[in-house]
C-alpha cells in the first residue's frame, strides 16, 4: 500500500567538529594523557571516589547492590560538594572550578546551601547522572587511572588493590577526626541529613583545592597515581606516556620565568612556536624533546583544524544568507569567492606565486626551503597563531566577512604546510597517524596535494575549488552522514539536492575557537598536588617537589 515517507533523522542537534577533523587530535591526546579529559581536572576526585567505594564495601557488606550504592554515593558526594563550596565561600576567593554537580558558578551548591537551615538533606537532587560524578564524567577516567573498574553491568565497581585501595585508605586517614567521619563510622554509615556545621568541618579537610590537599594524606598517593614511577619505561604503556606529558608540563613551568602557562595564548605559543613570548624561547630538556614534538603535532593538527574551520564558516555563512539573490550552487559560491576584492588577484595567481609571496613577507626567498619556521616567527606578526587570533577576536566583535575568512583560512593552511616541511623529516611525524586511528583529511594528503599542484602550475582559484569541494562540502556531508548512521542525529549544517545547497539552520554560526587541550587539565592536577604553583604576579613555577618530580621523569627517560 502507498505510504508517505518519514524523515530519516530522529532528532536535530547542533554538534560541533562538523568536518570530523578535531577528533584525531583528541584521540592522540587520549594516548598522550590517559586518564585526563577536559571535564575532569580536579585530582582529588580520584581519592574521594575511591574512599566512598571503600567505605561502602566496609560498612555495607549486607547489601552491595548498585541501588544501595547509588543512595550511598549521592549522600557522600553532596556532602563533599557542599563542603568544597563552603570552603571557598568563607575564604571569599574565586569560585572553585571543576566542582562536579555544582553547576555554573557552583549555583546548585549555592542554592542547596542557602535553602537549608541548620540541617541539610543529603537526598537533594544535584546531578542527573546515576552514580553522580562517578558515572559521568569521572567514570571512564577513574578506570584509566587504574583506580576502579567495572565488575559487571548493574553491579557496583571494584576498587583496585594497590592504587585504589591505597588512595582510599589515605583519604580515610585524612578525614579521620572530622565530625562527618565520626558519624559515618560510629552512628550511621549513610546519613540522610546532617548539620551545616558538619559539612563546614568536612569541607575544610577534603576540599579539592591545593591548600587542602597539601595537608591531606592522599597527596602523595595521588602523585604516584599520576606519575606511576613503579612502571618501567615503555612508551607503549599509556601510563608511561602520561608520565612524560606531565614531565613536559613540569619542564614548561620550570622554565616559564614568570609566564603563566595556564594562559591559553602562552601555552599555544610554547607548543606551536617554541616561545613564551617574543623575548623568551622555550627549549625542552633533551630527554623530553620527543615528547615536546608529539605535543607540537597536536597543536599543528589543531591549527590545521582552525584553518579548515575558517573556510567552513565562510561557506556556511554564505549558504545561510537569505538575502542572497542566486540559488546556492557550488558555482555561485566560487563566483562569490573569486569576486571578493582582495581575492581577485590571488585566485588567478598560481600556487607557486602565492607560496612565494607568503615566504617573501617573512623575508624568505625559497618556498621549498625547510626554514619557514625560523622566519615566520611570533615577532614577524604573520605566524598562524596570530592570523587566527585576529579572526577569533574579530568574531567576538562580530566583525569579519567571507573575504577575511577565506583568505586567512587558506593562508593558515598553506603556512602550516610550509612550516611542517621540517617537521615531516622527524620519524615521530607519523606517530599521530599511527596512534590516533582513522584520520579524517590527513594533513599529509593536504600537503602532498599542495606541493603537487604548486609544481603543476595550478592556480589558487583551482586549488580553492578542490579544497571547498573535497575538504569542506564533501567532508561535512560524510561526517554528518556518519553521525546520522551511528547516532541517528541530524548534524547537517547544510544539505545538497539537485545542485543546490540548502541551509539547515539559517541562524547557526560556526564558532571560531581553539579545540580543547588536555594539558590545561593536567596542569590543574599538578597544581592540586602541589608540584606547580603560581607566584604573586600569576606566573607559573615548579615547586620544590615539582623540581624533584621533573628530575625523576628525566632520569627515568635517561635510564
Amino acid at each position, binding site marked *: 500500500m502507498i505510504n508517505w515517507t*518519514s524523515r530519516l533523522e530522529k532528532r536535530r542537534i547542533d554538534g560541533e567538529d562538523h568536518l570530523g577533523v578535531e577528533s584525531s587530535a583528541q584521540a592522540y591526546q587520549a594516548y598522550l594523557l590517559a586518564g585526563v579529559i577536559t571535564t575532569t581536572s580536579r585530582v582529588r576526585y580520584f581519592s574521594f571516589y575511591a574512599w566512598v567505594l571503600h567505605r561502602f564495601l566496609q560498612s555495607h557488606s549486607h547489601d552491595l547492590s548498585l541501588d544501595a550504592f547509588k543512595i550511598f554515593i549521592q549522600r557522600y558526594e553532596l556532602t563533599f560538594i557542599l563542603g568544597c563550596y563552603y570552603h571557598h565561600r568563607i575564604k571569599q576567593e574565586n569560585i572553585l572550578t571543576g566542582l562536579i554537580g555544582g553547576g555554573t558558578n557552583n549555583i546548585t551548591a549555592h542554592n542547596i546551601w542557602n535553602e537549608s537551615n541548620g540541617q541539610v538533606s543529603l537526598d537533594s537532587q544535584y546531578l542527573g547522572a546515576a552514580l553522580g560524578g562517578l558515572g559521568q564524567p569521572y567514570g571512564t577516567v577513574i578506570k584509566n587511572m587504574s583506580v576502579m573498574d567495572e565488575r559487571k553491568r548493574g553491579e557496583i565497581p571494584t576498587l583496585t588493590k594497590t592504587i585504589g585501595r591505597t588512595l582510599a585508605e589515605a583519604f580515610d586517614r585524612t578525614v579521620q577526626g572530622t565530625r562527618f567521619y565520626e558519624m559515618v563510622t560510629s552512628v550511621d554509615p549513610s546519613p540522610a541529613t546532617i548539620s551545616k556545621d558538619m559539612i563546614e568541618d568536612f569541607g575544610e579537610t577534603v576540599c579539592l583545592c591545593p591548600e587542602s590537599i597539601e595537608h591531606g594524606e592522599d597527596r602523595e598517593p595521588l602523585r604516584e597515581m599520576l606519575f606511576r614511577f613503579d612502571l618501567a619505561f615503555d612508551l607503549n604503556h599509556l601510563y608511561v606516556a602520561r608520565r612524560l606529558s606531565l614531565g613536559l608540563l613540569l619542564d614548561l613551568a620550570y622554565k616559564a620565568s614568570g609566564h603563566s602557562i595556564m594562559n591559553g595564548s602562552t601555552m599555544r605559543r610554547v607548543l606551536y612556536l617554541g616561545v613564551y613570548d617574543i623575548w623568551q624561547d622555550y627549549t625542552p630538556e633533551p630527554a623530553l624533546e620527543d615528547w615536546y614534538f608529539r605535543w607540537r603535532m597536536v597543536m599543528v593538527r589543531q591549527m590545521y583544524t582552525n584553518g579548515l574551520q575558517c573556510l567552513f564558516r565562510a561557506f556556511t555563512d554564505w549558504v545561510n544568507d537569505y538575502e542572497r539573490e542566486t540559488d546556492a550552487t557550488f558555482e555561485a559560491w566560487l563566483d562569490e569567492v573569486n569576486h571578493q576584492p582582495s581575492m581577485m588577484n590571488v585566485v588567478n595567481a598560481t600556487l607557486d606565486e602565492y607560496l612565494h609571496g607568503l615566504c617573501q613577507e617573512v623575508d624568505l626567498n625559497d618556498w621549498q626551503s625547510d626554514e619557514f619556521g625560523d622566519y615566520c616567527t611570533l615577532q614577524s606578526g604573520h605566524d598562524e597563531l596570530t592570523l587566527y587570533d585576529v579572526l577569533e577576536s574579530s568574531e567576538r566583535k562580530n566583525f569579519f566577512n567571507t573575504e577575511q575568512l577565506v583568505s586567512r583560512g587558506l593562508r593558515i593552511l598553506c603556512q602550516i604546510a610550509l612550516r611542517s616541511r621540517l617537521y615531516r623529516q622527524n620519524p615521530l611525524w607519523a606517530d599521530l597517524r599511527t596512534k590516533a586511528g582513522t584520520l579524517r583529511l590527513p594533513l599529509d594528503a593536504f600537503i602532498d596535494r599542495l606541493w603537487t599542484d604548486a609544481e603543476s602550475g595550478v592556480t589558487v582559484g583551482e586549488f580553492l575549488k578542490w579544497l571547498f569541494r573535497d575538504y569542506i562540502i564533501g567532508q561535512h556531508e560524510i561526517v554528518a552522514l556518519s553521525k546520522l548512521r551511528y547516532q541517528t542525529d541530524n548534524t547537517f549544517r547544510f544539505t545538497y539536492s539537485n545542485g543546490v545547497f540548502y541551509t539547515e539552520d539559517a541562524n547557526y554560526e560556526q564558532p571560531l575557537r581553539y579545540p580543547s587541550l588536555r594539558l590545561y587539565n593536567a596542569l590543574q592536577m599538578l597544581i592540586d598536588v602541589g608540584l606547580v604553583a603560581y607566584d604573586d604576579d600569576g606566573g607559573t613555577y615548579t615547586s620544590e617537589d615539582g623540581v624533584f618530580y621533573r628530575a625523576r621523569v628525566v632520569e627515568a627517560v635517561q635510564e
Partner: protein
Amino acid sequence: MTLNIADYLETLKPHYHSAIFFTYSLNLVFFENLVLPKLERLGIKRNIILADPFGYDEAIATGQNNIQYAGRHYVCTPLRKQESGVQHVKVLLLVGEKHGVLITGSGNLTFYGYGRNLEVVDVRTLELDNEETHSEQIAFYTIWRLLESLMSEELLDSTSNESLNAIRASAEWITNIPRTLNRPVVHSYNQSILDQIDALPSVDVLRIIAPYFSQASLEEIVARKRPRRLSLFVDPKETYLDLDAARVLCDEMGCELDLYTISAVDKSKKGSRNLHAKVFVGIHARGSWCVSGSANCTYPALMGTWSGRGNLELMTIYISEDSIAFDDIFQDEAIQVEPLDQISLKGQVEDEGHQLSDAASVYLSDVTYVHPHLRGQITTDLQNAVWVLAINTFGREIAIQIDAYGAFETTLETELDKASVVVAIAKDANGTEITRSPAQFIQQVAILNRYGSRSYQVRVRENLNSFAGAESQFRELMDFLWKNLDVEELSSPDVSVSHRLKRRGRITTDSDEAPDNSPPSVESYYTDEDIDAAIWKRVQTLNPYDRDTASLKDLLSLTLLKLAAPIAQTAEIAAIEGSDITTLEIYTEAFERQKEQQVETFTRLKQYIIRYCRRYKEELFREDRAIAYQPFMNR
C-alpha cells in the same frame, strides 16, 4: 502512515543475497553510509545501481574522493540514452533464494529521496513458502523483464550483466511467468504510462499530487479520464504548473479545478521537506484507483517511452471497489493539506530540466580492472586523436591505444586499493586536450567477486556496530537456537543437565555441582590491577570481527556484550567525535542519547523474549514434542 526505507531495511531478516536499485539522481556517499551497511547486515552480496547519467555524473562530481566502495562492493552504472528522455525509475529490489522485496516510489537514492522530501513509497513482499504472497510475483517479474530488456539492448555494462545473470541463477523464481494477467506495476520501456492505465475507468474526481506538470499531459489525462473535478496538490514553493493554462483547460473540459497545498506536519523541525511525491487517484461511482511512483504529470513521463523520446518511468497501480479507499493518502497524519486560493507558481517546464546533454562527444564505458589489466571501451567519432586515461587515485596520466572499435587495454603498475574513477582524454599531436569523456567508475571485478563471496562474519561485524544491529543479531541467534533445538539430546535419559551444558560448552568446570548463587564476598570487589588492565586492554583492542566467532556461544556473548556495553566509554567517544568536550552538558547529552537508545532496544528485546518464551511454551505443549520431551520432563 509513514515508512522510512532505511528503517524498513532494519526490520528485514537476512533472506536476501542481491539488491538492485534504479534511481534518477544519486548520492553515493549517502548510499555507502546509510544504506549499504543495512544491506550488508542482511547478508546482501551483490548490489547494482542503475542511475540516470545526470545522477551518475553528479555523484562522481560531488563525492568522488569520499566514495569508497563503488566498483568494489557494488556496481554503479549509468543508463545512457541517445535520444532525449531520462532514466527516472526509483526502485529497490531485494532478491533472495525464496524471498523478494520490491520497493517502488518517487524517492531517489539520495538523502533527500530517502529521508527528507515528502515522497510516497510502496512495498511488496514475496515468500515462496507463503502462498498468500504469490500474487505479488507479477510485480517482481515485471521488474525482471525490464532488466532483461535493458540487458538485451546492451544498455548495461558487462559487470552489471554478469551480476544480473548470477542473481537469476540464484533466484530462478523471479523469471517464472506468473499466472495472473493483472499488472500492478507498469513501466514505460516501450509503452507509455498513460496508455497502460487507459483501461482504468473514467472518473468523477481526479486528484493529482506532483511537483511537475506540463499542459500537454494534463490535457491528455483529463481528456482520457473525463473528471468533473480536478484537484491538484502542490507545494507552492517548488511547483512547476501553468495555473492559467490549467484553468482554461478545466473551463474547456467542463470540470472544476481545485488547488491544495501539501506540506509536512513536522515543518517546525529544521531543514525543508519538499513535495516530490507523484500520485494519481481516480474516484468514480463504483470504486477508485491509485497510480503512484516516479512519473510526474509531464509529457516525457506520462506520454513518452524509453524506446522513443520519453523517460523510463515506473508506477504501481492499486484498484479498489471502495470509492474512499485512497482517501488516507490525503488525510495522513504526516501531512497537512490546505486549500490554495491564490498562488504564484513557477512557469511550465517539460520535466525536471534533464534533457540529454550533448556536451560530451566521447563516452567511456565498460571499464573493468583485474590487476594489472585495465580494459574499457571508448565511443567517439574522433579520428587520429592521442588518448590518455586520467584516474583520480593515480598521480599521472596513462597513454592508451584504442582499436578500430574503440576498445583499449592497458596495465597498471600499482594495484588500485580504493574506489576509482577514470576519464578518457583525447589530445592532438601537440599534446593539447581536444575533449574528454564524462568520468566513469572502474569496476574492480576481482574485488567485487571477493565481496560477493564474503563471509558471514562481515555481516556480524556490521551488526555489532550498533545497538539496533546487535538487537537484530540477538534475534537471529535466538531464532537459530530455536530452529536447532536438540530434542534428541533433551530427551536422552542418560545425560544429566550439567553434562549437556558441558557438551555445549556452557559449563567448563569438572564439577557437576550446581553453580553457587550466593552473593560475592566484599573482598571480590578489590581487584588486581594487572588482571584488570589485561582484560580491559583485550576488550578495547579486539575488533569484534577478529574475536572468536566460531562458536555460537561466543557469538551470542559478543552480541550481549554489545547490548550491555557500558555507555560511559561510548559517550566519551561520542563527545570526542562531536568535539565539544569543553562542557559537561554536551558530554552528558551524548551519554543520555546513547542510554535512551539502549533502553529502547532493551524494551523491544524484552517484548521479543516474552514472545519467544510463549512460543517455547506452546512448543512444549505440542503433542509430538511432549512425547519427545517426556523422559527429560519426568526427571
